[in-house]
């Protein structure tokens, strides 16, 4: 076996804050060999990102570091910043989480890539570096690379930007690529493409890769070895098969079982998804009345929302229109969970906002409990606010940080004119219902973890006995184990209280376990709609199939059988430059 490229020995990182000493990483040791893909998996706050920043030598000066990091025989901590800069971008390169902020908005994409090349190879002429940038763009699958290289980052979509980041990362043929949650900000279909690109780029270069992620599904198709971290410490490490099929530690087991998976089956032998199957059992066990006999809670008919695109500052004229929601219809019955699934920009959020406004839509009709929203009086509308409630995506942003959670829960009740005594009883009941302690009513949201805050958000939505709760990606900001808990709570509430859900999500695998019906949305229209089982087993529309195929499966054997679109190795070697291929191609060659 070849010598490891990177050896981390007994690494500990701590920070001194006003709240006291915080240990971010404790006694972490691992090795990465050439050509190997190591995945560091952990939930937020487990120290996975800090440990990789340490490898890059990018930790702030206030960090207290002990231990050793050796990169190709050189000790990182003995180097000064100038020497480290030599390594960064050349020997190690990094793909960041947020492609929006990782590219400089004021330079063209081509300039930014050629800058990476020229920093480490000052002898390469400007023209050659620019040509190289175009080759790299072509290699990562960006159409019309010559034209695209002249564009600025804002003209690229999120997935395209992440491709550009990968192009920059592989520009100097690094020995080690660190990818820090490279696909967290992306849609599921784009995520699949980017991960495949990253994998094939790694295979082509023979580089070692460290993938930092919280998503077990991504790991299964990518990594050779997995390192699980929790609370700054390593929990378990092993081959990807071993971790997925025979995890030794309970934490790994929990982590895996909380991963939602789109293929229900346990045939593969992977532990993943066990807990989520229980959610599905809870969600579907009750209520035997057939759907047709139950009353309709929410009906949306031919809903349109069109934003005009205007030009001109003084005299505005309409130059076009953006059809955010383009004639969608669906209905939700009592005690039913309908999922509205689609990628970002498909009009999901606009649809919910139209429903929550309780106004007459531009075109079409929204009926709640049989009453059209347009015809409501002010009083009726205020009353209806208690029956249709919303749970937001981000539990950090949706609770007022200056208010104790008891007051937050009382707010909707106060609007509906509950008595003080009833409100207090209700707050106790609500907190118990969402599995929090009633004593916590006097605490502030910042004292709770993300999952607990989302429970408070759910409790607030439940406050006035709603008929319908609209869930706007309620778990996408949460860690998987926490997500499983919140989903289990939602499933339980649905069967116990008989509320209906409109569950908006971009993640098909989450939706599978909790929803009764699914509507797939694309470009403002519903392309497919039907009972969950039917949609998953027998998808009719092309787009649904595409979505299903893109969802990562937390099972290494299954994940490896899937197709992949490879990096254009020929372009990387420099065929794009035609006759001058030999000279302008690979800078190392």
């Amino acid at each position: 076996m070849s010598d490891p490229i990177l050896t981390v020995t007994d690494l500990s990182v701590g920070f001194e804050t006003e709240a006291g000493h915080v240990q971010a990483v404790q006694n972490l040791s691992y090795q990465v060999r050439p050509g190997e893909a190591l995945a560091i998996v952990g939930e937020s706050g487990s120290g996975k990102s800090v440990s990789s920043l340490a490898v890059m030598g990018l930790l702030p000066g206030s960090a207290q570091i002990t231990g050793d990091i050796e990169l190709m025989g050189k000790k990182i901590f003995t180097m000064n910043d100038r020497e480290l800069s030599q390594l960064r971008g050349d020997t190690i390169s990094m793909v960041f989480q947020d492609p929006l902020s990782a590219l400089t908005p004021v330079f063209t994409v081509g300039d930014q890539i050629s800058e990476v090349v020229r920093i480490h190879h000052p002898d390469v002429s400007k023209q050659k570096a620019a040509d190289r940038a175009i080759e790299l763009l072509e290699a990562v699958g960006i159409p019309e690379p010559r034209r695209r290289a002249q564009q600025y980052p804002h003209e690229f979509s999120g997935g395209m930007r992440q491709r550009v980041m990968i192009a920059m990362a592989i520009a100097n043929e690094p020995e080690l690529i660190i990818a820090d949650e490279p696909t967290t900000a992306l849609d599921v279909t784009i995520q699949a493409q980017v991960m495949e690109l990253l994998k094939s780029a790694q295979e082509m270069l023979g580089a070692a890769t460290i993938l930092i992620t919280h998503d077990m599904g991504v790991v299964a198709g990518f990594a050779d070895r997995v390192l699980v971290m929790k609370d700054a410490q390593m929990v378990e490490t092993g081959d990807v098969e071993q971790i997925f099929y025979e995890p030794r530690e309970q934490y790994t087991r929990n982590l895996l079982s909380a991963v939602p998976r789109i293929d229900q089956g346990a045939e593969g032998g992977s532990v993943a998804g066990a807990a989520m199957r229980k959610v599905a059992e809870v969600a579907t066990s009750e209520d035997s009345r057939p759907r047709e006999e139950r009353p309709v809670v929410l009906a949306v008919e031919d809903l349109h929302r069109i934003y005009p695109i205007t030009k001109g500052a003084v005299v505005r004229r309409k130059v076009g229109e953006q059809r955010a929601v383009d004639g969608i219809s669906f209905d939700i019955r009592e005690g039913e969970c309908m999922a509205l699934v689609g990628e970002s920009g498909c009009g999901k959020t606009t649809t919910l906002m139209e429903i929550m406004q309780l106004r007459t839509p531009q075109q079409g009709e929204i009926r709640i409990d049989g009453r059209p929203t347009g015809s409501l009086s002010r009083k009726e509308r205020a009353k209806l606010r208690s029956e249709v409630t919303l749970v937001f995506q981000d539990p950090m942003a949706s609770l007022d940080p200056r208010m104790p959670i008891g007051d937050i829960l009382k707010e909707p009740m106060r609007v509906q004119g509950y008595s003080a005594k009833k409100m207090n009883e209700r707050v106790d009941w609500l907190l118990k219902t969402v599995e929090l302690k009633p004593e916590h009513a006097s605490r502030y949201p910042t004292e709770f973890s993300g999952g607990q805050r989302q429970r408070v958000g759910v409790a607030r939505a439940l406050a006035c006995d709603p008929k319908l709760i609209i869930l706007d990606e309620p778990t996408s900001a949460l860690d998987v184990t926490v997500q499983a808990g919140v989903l289990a709570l939602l499933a339980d509430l649905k069967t116990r209280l008989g509320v209906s859900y409109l569950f908006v999500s971009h993640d098909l695998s989450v939706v599978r376990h909790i929803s009764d019906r699914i509507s797939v949305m694309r470009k403002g229209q519903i392309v497919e709609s039907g009972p969950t089982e039917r949609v998953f087993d027998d998808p009719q529309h092309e787009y649904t199939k595409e979505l299903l195929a893109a969802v990562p499966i937390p099972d290494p054997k299954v994940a490896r059988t899937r197709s992949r679109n490879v990096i254009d190795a020929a372009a990387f070697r420099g065929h794009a430059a035609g006759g001058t291929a030999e000279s302008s191609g690979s800078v190392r060659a």
Partner: protein
Amino acid sequence: MTNPSDMRGTDDAAALQVETDHRANSVLEGMPPSEAEPPEGDARSLESIGRGELLRRRFLRNPGALIGMVVVLLLILGAIFAPMAYQYEPFERDLRNALTGPSQYHWFGVDENGYDIFARTMVGLRISLVIGAGTALLTTVLALIVGTVAGYVSYKGRWGAFVDGALVNLINLFLVIPSLLLLMLFSPVLQQASWLWLIPLLAIFSWMLTARVLRAMTQQLVRTEYVEASRFMGVNPVTTIVRHIIPNIASWIIIDTTLGVSAAILGETGLSFIGFGIQYPNVSLGTVLQAYNIAAPWTWIPPAMVLAALVISVNLMGEALRDALDPTSGSSRV
């Protein structure tokens, strides 16, 4: 002479000091130099002490804050008690000692009209403090109303945009008005009724920039999910502003009010110095300075020092408060 209206004024100033700190307390409990500690024991104050403790530590870590606090406290105490204990009244003439320097009877000396400078400075300090604090509070209230309303309605459809536009134009109008000229015009007229008129007069020309900032902050908050959530629950807009928006911009308001005190004091003393501010039979630090005699330094150095000490120490406190409360410093959450 300790006239009753003065007395009320100083009490106001002291009450105001406590009140300002108390308003801070609702956000950051345990802020010195408040004597009015919130009732302890219930879980809420227990929790908040965690955050309050952090702020107290950060505030006190700043040596400027401590110095500022002590100096302001001494000046307030001096303004309240010194005129009661001192043997001379501000308009008592001691012509025999006219234009003599500091002595054991006349602590800061006597000016050419035979007035005792220490007595005048301390009584003037009272009025300056009252006007400073009152103007700062009134300015904040005005700015808060205009700023939050404009910020809140700016996203509410066509009418909202219209109201917002009208308020912003009002702000701009007040910004371009030559305020000094209008102050010089109105101040002496209104002074005939009461010297307290100077408070609204100064406030009406100094709320605009604060209002603009508050409008921008409100616009930012209106877009947060928790404000949106309260809208979807049917909470009425005024309640939303009072319960969700103002508490979340409170720290900035507190800082701005504190710094506004020194700005208002400077405005008032400047106006009084050129003769358009506080009129006979009242004295402010500005009118004391007006009777300067350049050849006799004791006629202008002591009041100027008191004025400078007051403004600098209030500013020091404001700066320390800003550092302690600064939401961008990142570690403000425990």
